């Protein structure tokens, strides 16, 4: 009973969170088209199950590291929507006070380091943060997100090896969306699965369906338990796909319409929604209800962000050094 109830609550929470990720990205996309946001964005439509499945398996004091494509990670981790939106609007109320921008969103309070936009650059940070957890005897873990493209860079190799030999409490989460910008994964690595690379470090490598949030959640719970119990890291590969272009300006002509279509048939939100309806966890109309609540939440965040104060030019000079 109790178990069922909490499981039901978890599923609903994950559904809502995934939808929030999706609707946030879609709304932000239009804000960019309207020229209301500066800079560029790397969006994650289609990758909601990875972000939400992983972060739903975390404890409040755990830590997440992210990449140039961090919006869904931040939302899934619980970084306040208002502060995320405000950051994209370059406002003083942003989670990085307007200094970071889209590629560096994060909030240590919420359990997410500022995202690192150098591909692979956050992997050593994640291992280091995990080392701190271990030394300070905190029962927490780090979830380190990166794309399959990042598995070809030196920091992936060096940091995972060190995390492995020291049994650090970190889970290396590879969102394999098959492309690094325009570059298909087959072009840049001969292994079929990124998880095969785990063997080089003597740690478990697991590949699961990254578009099924429950599967992701389960796999992360397992890898997380292993890390928490001092058994060390896991390389968790989540097979997924981004529906959006690589960045704002990318039409994605390097992918066939068929391929994109095929993956859209496996839209993680659609898949999960259908399942929840079948299981009766979602009642007819619930989805629409949730969507409209999120809609309002986003509009409120945008309205707030637009009237929030901008930094002063001279604020550029602060926050370089502590004290």
């Amino acid at each position, binding site marked *: 009973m109790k178990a069922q109830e909490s499981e039901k609550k978890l599923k609903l929470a994950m559904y809502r969170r995934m939808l929030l990720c999706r609707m946030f990205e879609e709304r932000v996309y239009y804000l960019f088209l309207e020229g209301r946001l500066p800079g560029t964005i790397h969006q994650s439509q289609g990758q909601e199950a990875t972000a939400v499945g992983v972060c739903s398996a975390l404890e409040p004091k755990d830590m997440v590291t992210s990449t140039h494509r961090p919006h869904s990670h931040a939302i899934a981790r619980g970084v306040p929507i208002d502060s995320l939106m405000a950051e994209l609007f*370059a406002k003083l109320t942003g989670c990085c006070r307007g*200094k970071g921008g*889209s590629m560096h969103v994060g909030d240590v309070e919420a359990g997410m380091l500022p995202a690192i936009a*150098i591909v692979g650059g956050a992997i050593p940070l994640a291992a280091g943060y995990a080392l701190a957890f271990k030394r300070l005897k905190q029962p927490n873990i780090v979830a380190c997100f990166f794309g399959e493209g990042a598995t*070809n860079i*030196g920091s992936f190799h060096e940091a995972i090896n060190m995390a492995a030999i020291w049994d650090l409490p970190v889970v290396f989460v590879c969102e394999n969306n098959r492309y690094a910008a325009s*570059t298909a994964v087959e072009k*840049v690595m001969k292994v079929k699965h990124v998880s095969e690379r785990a063997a080089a470090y003597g740690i478990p490598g697991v590949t699961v369906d990254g578009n099924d949030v429950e599967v992701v959640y389960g796999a992360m719970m397992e890898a997380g338990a292993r890390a928490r119990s001092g058994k060390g890291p896991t390389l968790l590969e989540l097979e997924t796909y981004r529906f959006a272009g690589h960045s704002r300006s990318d039409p994605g002509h390097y992918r066939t319409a068929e391929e994109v279509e095929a993956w859209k048939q496996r839209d993680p939100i659609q898949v999960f929604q259908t399942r929840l309806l079948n299981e009766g966890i979602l009642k007819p109309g619930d989805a629409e209800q949730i969507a409209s609540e999120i809609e309002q939440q986003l509009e409120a965040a945008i309205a707030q962000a637009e009237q929030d104060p901008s930094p002063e*030019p*001279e604020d550029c000079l602060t926050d370089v050094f502590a004290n």
Partner: protein
Amino acid sequence: MSSPTKTTSNQPSQSREMTMAEALREALREEMRRDERVILLGEDIGIEGGFGGAFTVTLGLSEEFGHERILDTPISEAAIAGIATGAAVGGLRPVADVQYGDFLFLTMDQLANNAAKLRYMSGGKLSVPMVFRAPVGATTRGSQHGQSLEAFFMHVAGLKVACPSNPYDGKGMLKSAIRDDNPVIFFEHKLLYGSKGARKEKGGLQVVAHVPEEEYLVPLGEAKVVRPGRDVTLVANLLMVHKSMQAANLLAEKGIEAEVIDVRSLVPFDWATVFDSVRKTGRLVVVEEDNLTGGWGAEVVARVADQCIGYLDGPIRRIAAPDTPVPFAPIMENFYVPSVDRIVVTVTDLVAPH
């Protein structure tokens, strides 16, 4: 900053207007046609349906030269630099690139410890004819996608450093760099690529230049006086050349005649042109987008303070970014990047009789 600035490059009858991206692409195409040994290495540079690199410079080249010569790499900047270096020693003339200059930090061991030193360590028995292209400059991308890294490489003995400010120089210098038998770090400014590429940057300048049909080279190591003047010498590179020119025009209205020098390459550096100008004007202001402390401008000041001290009528000023990372918010970024206004105010104050 949207008014078209045309470069006053020698304009032969037969010429077309081109953006930097187009001019660099033409330089690569011509050199690849001319020399089989020229190959390109980089991320997303030759993929069908792709971008032609982060800023369209290599767009379409793989169609003509194929994937044997246009090599799309994994995200492995250190190896890209090291493999380009090894290939150069092995007889090729690689032109490699990073998508953003900020990623050069990943390549520094290969470029500074290997590419720059292999010839020396071999006692002069081998050479490393390679080019490494890197887009620099702040464009509202934040701290890890907006840095200017010229100073780091100017300080590495054994590397040449180029930084063209317009399409004419860009084409001519890239061709010279490819034919050079030494490693050349080739800096390009994101706001100078021009709008014809798919990737027009907000705030980008509409810099076009007349580029002659017939082949030409612009040698590395020659600065250019892009505006003569008697009162003060402005030394700048890349985007700052354009801001300095705009400032010079405003200053002229106040009766201050600034001489503007586009350094064009930092290694080798054309000291004579700078010294001659300072000895004439008696005043020097260096304008750079990089962080103030340890920027390349400091080296310019140091050489002048050693060679021209007796000719100076006042202090030497540098206009540079403050010593902070690049901020994201445009309001802060506009404060961070030296502005035309800052140049005008600084020069006016310097020239004003105290």
